[in-house]
Each structure stands twice: as structure tokens, then as C-alpha cells.
């Protein structure tokens, strides 16, 4: 059985996540505003239609593109010396200290409680169309998986091969990968909740909901 209390204490001792904001491509950087210690917010709105706080502009080929804060947090390290300079792709621009939200804490703790289906090799993964459709329409927890079920497509070196699920029967509770991102070997892809453990899992969620205070 999980010791939720201990896990929570553990997270509470360091309730932050460092997010490094990097330049997505080459270009000239202009920081928008803000200094170390400023608070920023992430994408918001019912449909995620409101972008986060503007952090910087990156101009490439006369195209000025905004860089927004991905999450809520505090600016801890801002590389102001790069102001007006040409940067290469992947250059660190600033670091955000993000206070974990309730949802993220739940995800973290659930990772301990759920059965994790892991990536067999480094590749890009995505769902087969039927599953994808169902997840989009009815949401997670609507898809039941069982041993040997064709569920994912592994895209590697321009080739795509199907991947069958192996593990206990249950519902998809969490999805840990994004379409188009590389997943390293052994990283979790899915969190599956066996149906008889559903109440335990919901218990965990309820516990965290009540015990984790989100800093507004």
C-alpha cells in the first residue's frame, strides 16, 4: 500500500519544479519585461486560448516571435546579458521556479500507484487512430486496455511499427508522452489503473486534493 502521507511530505519539502526556458531556434533575443523574482503565469482560459506572460521576443528573418511562459512561476535566473544578441537554438534564456499544482502532485503520486507501461526503445510514440479518437472524444479513463491489445505506433527512423500493450488489464489513467516528442527507452508511456484498484486511486486523488494547497 502507498504511504501517501510520506510521499506528500517528500514533495512538500521541495514543492518546486525548475523550468528552463530555451530559445526554440536561432535569432535575436529581446527580453520583454521582468527581472528575477517576478511572477509569471502560464497558458490559461477555458480552451487554453490565453497565452502565458510574455517573456521575450525572438526575431529570426525579420519575423518577431513571442516566447510565453509555459507555466506559472517565478523568474529565478534571467540571462539579461543576451539582450539584443544572436542566440543559437536551445540557448537557455531564463529559468522559472514553478510551484507544483495540485494536478501535478497528483500525477507524481499516481506514478507510484499506477501500473506504468514503459517505452521499449527510444522513439516517438502515438496512439493508433481508433484509440486516439476515443481518447479525444470521451477523454482518458474511457479506454480499457488488455494484454496484447494493439494500442500504440512506434515511429522510429522514418518507420512505423505497431506496439501491443502488455501488463494488467485496466483503464488508461495518465498519458505521459506528447505526440511528436522523443521518448527514451524505459520512460513511462501510460499509467494504467486496474479496475479493482480504481477506488484506491480515487482515494489518492481525494487526499491530495484536500491536502495540497495551491499557492494562488
Amino acid at each position, binding site marked *: 500500500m502507498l504511504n501517501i502521507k510520506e510521499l506528500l511530505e517528500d514533495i512538500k519539502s521541495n514543492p518546486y519544479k525548475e523550468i528552463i526556458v530555451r530559445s526554440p531556434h536561432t535569432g535575436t533575443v529581446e527580453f520583454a519585461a521582468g527581472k528575477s523574482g517576478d511572477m509569471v503565469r502560464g497558458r490559461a*482560459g*477555458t*480552451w487554453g486560448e490565453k497565452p502565458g506572460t510574455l517573456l521575450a521576443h525572438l526575431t529570426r*528573418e*525579420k*519575423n518577431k*516571435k513571442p516566447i510565453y511562459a509555459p507555466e506559472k512561476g517565478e523568474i529565478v535566473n534571467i540571462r539579461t546579458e543576451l539582450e539584443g544578441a544572436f542566440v543559437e537554438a536551445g540557448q537557455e534564456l531564463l529559468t522559472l521556479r514553478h510551484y507544483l499544482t495540485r494536478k501535478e502532485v497528483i500525477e507524481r503520486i499516481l506514478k507510484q500507484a499506477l501500473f506504468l507501461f514503459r517505452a521499449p526503445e527510444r522513439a516517438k510514440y502515438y496512439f493508433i487512430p481508433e484509440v486516439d479518437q476515443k481518447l479525444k472524444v470521451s477523454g482518458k479513463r474511457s479506454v480499457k486496455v488488455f494484454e496484447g491489445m494493439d494500442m500504440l505506433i512506434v515511429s522510429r527512423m522514418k518507420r512505423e511499427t505497431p506496439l501491443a500493450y502488455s501488463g494488467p488489464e485496466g483503464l488508461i489513467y495518465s498519458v505521459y508522452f506528447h505526440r511528436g516528442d522523443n521518448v527514451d527507452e524505459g520512460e513511462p508511456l501510460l499509467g494504467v489503473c486496474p479496475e479493482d484498484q480504481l477506488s484506491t486511486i480515487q482515494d489518492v486523488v481525494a487526499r491530495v486534493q484536500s491536502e495540497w494547497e495551491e499557492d494562488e
Partner: protein
Amino acid sequence: MDREKRLLALRNRLAYVEDVFGPDGNDSIRVLKARAAEFLERLPHFPQADVEREFRRIEELLDFSEKKLEKELTPMDRVRIVRHPQRICLKDILENVYDNYSEIGGQGEYNIDPSVLIARAIISRRVGRRVVNQPVLVIGHEKGHGEEFRNGGSAKPWGNAKALHYMKVAETENIPIHTYVFTPGSYPVEDYPGAAQQIARNLYEMSALRVPVVAVFSEGGSGGAEAVALADRRIMLSHGYYSVISPEGAAAIEGRLRNGQRADSALVERCARQLAITAQDNVANGYVDRVVQEPPLGARPDHFEFFKTLRREILQATNEVVSSVKSMKLFRAMALSSRTHRKAALDPESIYVRWDLSNAARDRLLCKRYQRFRDMSHHAYRDNRTFMDKIRSGLEPLCWSLHSFVSYGLARGMRKRVRDLAEEVSAEAFLISERVVRPARKALSRFSGPDQPRAELGKRAKEALTRLSCPEEGACINGDSWVWMSGRAREDRAVSCPNARTHGCPDLWAPDLFSEFAGVCPCCGHHFSMEYEWYFYNVFNYAEAQEFNADIESGNPLEYEGFDAKIEQARKRTGRKSSCVTFETSLDGVQVVVASLIAPFRGGTVGAAEGEKFILAAERAQKKHYPFIAYVHGTAGIRIQEGVNGVIQMPRCTLAVRRYIDAGGLYLVIYDTNSYAGPVASFLGCSPYQFAIRSSNIGFAGPGVISETTGMPVPPNYHKAYQALSRGHVHGIWDRREIRKNLYQVLLTVGGRNLYYR
């Protein structure tokens, strides 16, 4: 008891006066208030004998003040009057003007849309000895004295659909329709049938509704009003308003406010004044036939005298409409008309006209209705056509009609007969050759040995298979480039696709994007908006087109403050005189008339000049038997600075379009970039063939207005073309690069019977 009632009435009247003059009030009100307060305070102490006298005194004072204040009413005060919960509403009218009625299509709260009330009503009259009951259909908005569920008389799309349904019923039953406009505007949701599309459908059907329609305006808010107000007679209550937009809405636009900020009241007042929204203004402009005088400061449910006046006016109006198209008129018609001239000779109650119409009379009715609206708003635009042009524009249609009659009417029959004959003959000839020549050739070849040698055959085949086909096209058949190129294609810069975040589109190089790609993201298919010239030249063959009526010019009919300069600026920037460009052109050999609303000229808004040009284009297409294409590069709606001169283009143009379609034409609408409000809710939305260009937005009201009116957040893709397609508002979505192909396909496959190439 009586005293309590009287007291309540008194309090109500006081509150009403206070409300009408807004938060600022004026001196007379303050005096009145002080006197009333004094009265109320002293009331319990009055001796019984004095009570009656004191009551009378204070009531007289109120009467006097109301009369005095009446003269001080500003347009904005009138707006407050019509919105006041104490104002008469449709239920009051049904009870007091008509002799009997039954509500149909729902009851009270249990209604598909409680803000639209429909009733079958009876008007009973004594004619000589007997009593005649004349049935009418009453349709109108119900404000319900502020009842929450009535939604302030703001009709939902399905409410308007219900109204339309019963209009058709009235048509079947051949009874007149009385409509009452008590709406601040339509409820701007896009759910099926959609605010704009349903209003357009209503207008389209009302354009050819074969029964008399009389409309009464109390609160006429833009498109919502038009949905039931396309009528043969339009009467207005003296304290009502009829406007293109609510004064607050106009102020929000004027002040460039966003996110529901409120405009300050001075600006709202100014807008209300400038928009010419009062009954007097509308009569002066010719958009309303008559005004029904209300009691001072507006009619309230206990003004019984007023209902009598209203009843008289309505009977009179209905009688007038009917008798003007009836073949048997005689004295009654004379009596009616004499009354209009000399005032009050005969009471309309005493004139009995049967309200059902014969088929011929119905045709005349439609003709008159069209002519009525056709004659409106000519003062509101500047006609810069030369004298000769005008003469020509009068004569030319006659020639076109004649030409069409001869070539598509007379000559076509003849040609067809000749063609049929030729076909028969050639079929006969073929048969003969099959029967006679072939056996002979076979016999011949039997003599001369076997078929041609195989090698010979192979050589011929090889020749056919390896030679360059169609050498006249040249060896390179690379995709043809566009005739017209955007200026943005000359800037060396990269552009990001708005879908980059979700679709991972790479940045595009502007010269590629805006020339070769025609503004389409090759990754996700997003269409960047393109200049209207792009479509004119690349789709509509503008270089060889013949533009007409370019000299009809948008003006500033209401002398709206600062608008002259804005129009002048638009004129300079675009080099055009209105946002509507009409021309005749040829698409792969098919002659068509195109009317286009272009966004750079005042956002493609429609005013009197645009409406007139649109109608002239529709008439031209009809006379010449050409297809009529409305290409909407973008329109933000009706031009608010023209007030009702703009709104009236909704019914005007719809009537013209309806006439064109009924004459057997093909009316096609193509939406591009952003198309909103009035035009979509009338002459564009009524087309049976509407197509959208990808990534365009189509709707009734913008997201800001919707969230303000409905209190619901609006999803970012709410107005996207694909949403409009799934709601059934448009019938297809076209890729910009294939418009021409699709257009041609449509020209060949859809449309009425009277196209010249059919």
C-alpha cells in the same frame, strides 16, 4: 383600498419618470420629486376630506410635468422609455387592440422561445347590421414587463424560425400579418439555425410572402427587428426607436472599447442623437410610413385611449395595403385615401375591406412591396454618374431585356429545333455507314490480304506513345503562376502560421507564401487573408471585366460627426467610392455578374450606396440572364454611421436577390476573411448556395458582443468556416487555389432555369 391602488400608481409613475431621464435627471424632476416626497410624507396626516383633493393635485402636477418633460426628451431618453418594464408590451396590445386572440407556438415560459410571441387574433367589427370577424396573425417580440425568461425581447434563432413558420401558415390561410417589433436585437448565438442565417431566411421568405404585412415598431434594434419587419406598411410608435445598433453598441465602437468596458454616458447620448433613431427621423427618411402618437413620456398599460388610436392605425394600414392591390376598390379606397389627406373624415372602423386576396392581387402585392423598398434610401448616397450615364442606365436594361427575350426566348427554340434535326440526321447517316460501308470495306480487305502488318501497327503505336503530346503547350507545363501578386510578396521576411503551435508549421518566407502559395500554409492549409485584388484578377478575370456603377458613392447621410473625413480617407486609400464593387466578367467563357464587398473600404460595411449597387447588379444579372456571384472579401456589417439608411439595405437587397432567384437565376455567395452581422443576416445569408473560403469567419456578432449579451465565454474557433459548415450555414469550403475550378463546376451544375447558357 382604492387609496392604496392610487398610491401605487402614483409611485409607479414617479419611478418611471425618474428612470426615463436617467441617473442625471433635471430640475423639473427634482422639483417633482420634492413635491411628491412631501405629499407622501403628509398623506397619513391629511384629513379624510382633503385626501381626494390632494391626490388630484399631485396627479395634476404629474400630468403637467409629464407634458412639460415630454418636450425635453432626448433620443437616449426614448431608448430608456422603450426599455422600461412599464412600457406597453405585446400582451397588452393583444388584449386591448384585438378583440380576441389565442396564443400559439408556446405559452409563457413553456415556449421554444418566450421572447417571440405568436397569436391568432380576431378583429370584430360591426358592418351595418352584422358583426364581421377578421382574423389576423400577430407576431412580435414579448418583453413581458421585464420578466427574466423573456430575455428582453431578444429573439433566439429558433424564435425567429418559429415566426417564419407561422408566417407561412398565414400565407396558406390567406390572412394578413401584423408584426410588432419590440426587440433590442437578436440573440447572437450561432447554434442552428443561427442568428444571422435565420434572419436571412425570414427576410427571404417575407420578400415574397403573399399576404399583407403591417409592422409596428416600438423598439427596432437592427437585424433582430428586420427578421419580422419586412412589411407593406411600417408604423412606428412615437416614443419608439429604430436603429442600426444600440446607442451603447455604437459608443463602444466609436470609443474603440474592448472586453466589455462601458462607454461614458455623454458619448452614448451623442451616438443616440447622431444615429437618427427616433420616429420623426425615420418618417423623415421614409423608412416608416406613419407615427402613432403616444401619451406624454410614452404609452403604459393603463393608457387605454392609446390602444384605441393604435387599433385605428392598424386597421387603416391593413385596409390601405389590401385595397391598394384589390381590383375592386371604388369608394372605399377613395374614402381611405381621402382620409389620409384630410385627416379624420371617416373612421377606419367603419370601412370594411375583406382582407383575403385573389392570386392576381397577391402578385400585385409583391410587386408593390418590391417597388416600395426599391424606392427607399436614394437620398442617402451620392450618385456621381453623369447625366448620360443615368440615361443609359435607364435605357440599357430595356435593351438587355429585349436581347434576352429574343436570344434566349425566341431564338433558342428555333436553334434547338435545328440542332435536334441535325442530330437525327447524323445518327441516321451513321447507321447507314455501319450497314453499308463497313461490310464493303471488310470484303475489300479480304481481297487485299490480312490486316495491316503488325510491325506497321506497332510503329504507329510507338509514335503515338513517345511523341510529345500537345506540343503547342510547350515542353514545360509547370503550374501557372498567379496573374496578380500581393505587395507583401516583395518583402524579404519570414511569417509564422497561426497554427504553428498546434500543427508544427514551419515559418514561411513571405515571397513564397504570398505569391506562389497564394497565401496558403503548405503544412496545415491555413489561409492567410489576401487582398481583394488577388481574387479579382486571379479568379474573376478582372483585367478583362467591365465594371459598372463605379460612380455611385458612399456619403454621410446623417452628417455623422467626423465621418466625412473617414469616408474620404477610405476613398483615398482604396481608390474606390464605396465598399461594393460590381462588374461583369467572363469565367472560362461563362458571362457572370459579380458584386463584391471589399474589406479595405470601411471594413466592407454596407450603406446606402453599397446596397444600391448591389441591387443594380442583381437587376442587371436578371435582365441579362447571367449568374450572379456575391464575393464577400470581408464585411463587418451594416455601416452604423448611416443609421437606418444602412439597415434598410437588408430588406432592400434581399428583395432584389429574391426577385432575381425567383426569375430563375443562380445566386452564389462566397465568403472570405471575416463576414459578420447585417449583410450575412440578409442578402448574403439567404442564398441557397453559400460557400466559404478556408480559414474565413462567418457569424452574426463578434465574440465580444456575444459574451457580453449571453454571459458565456466564446470558444476561439466559434466563427470558423468549418463550424459554420457543421451548423449548416455554408454549403462548402473552398481552397483558395481552387476557387476558379469550383466556381466553374458550380456554374455548370446548380442554378435556376433562366441562365443564358442553359
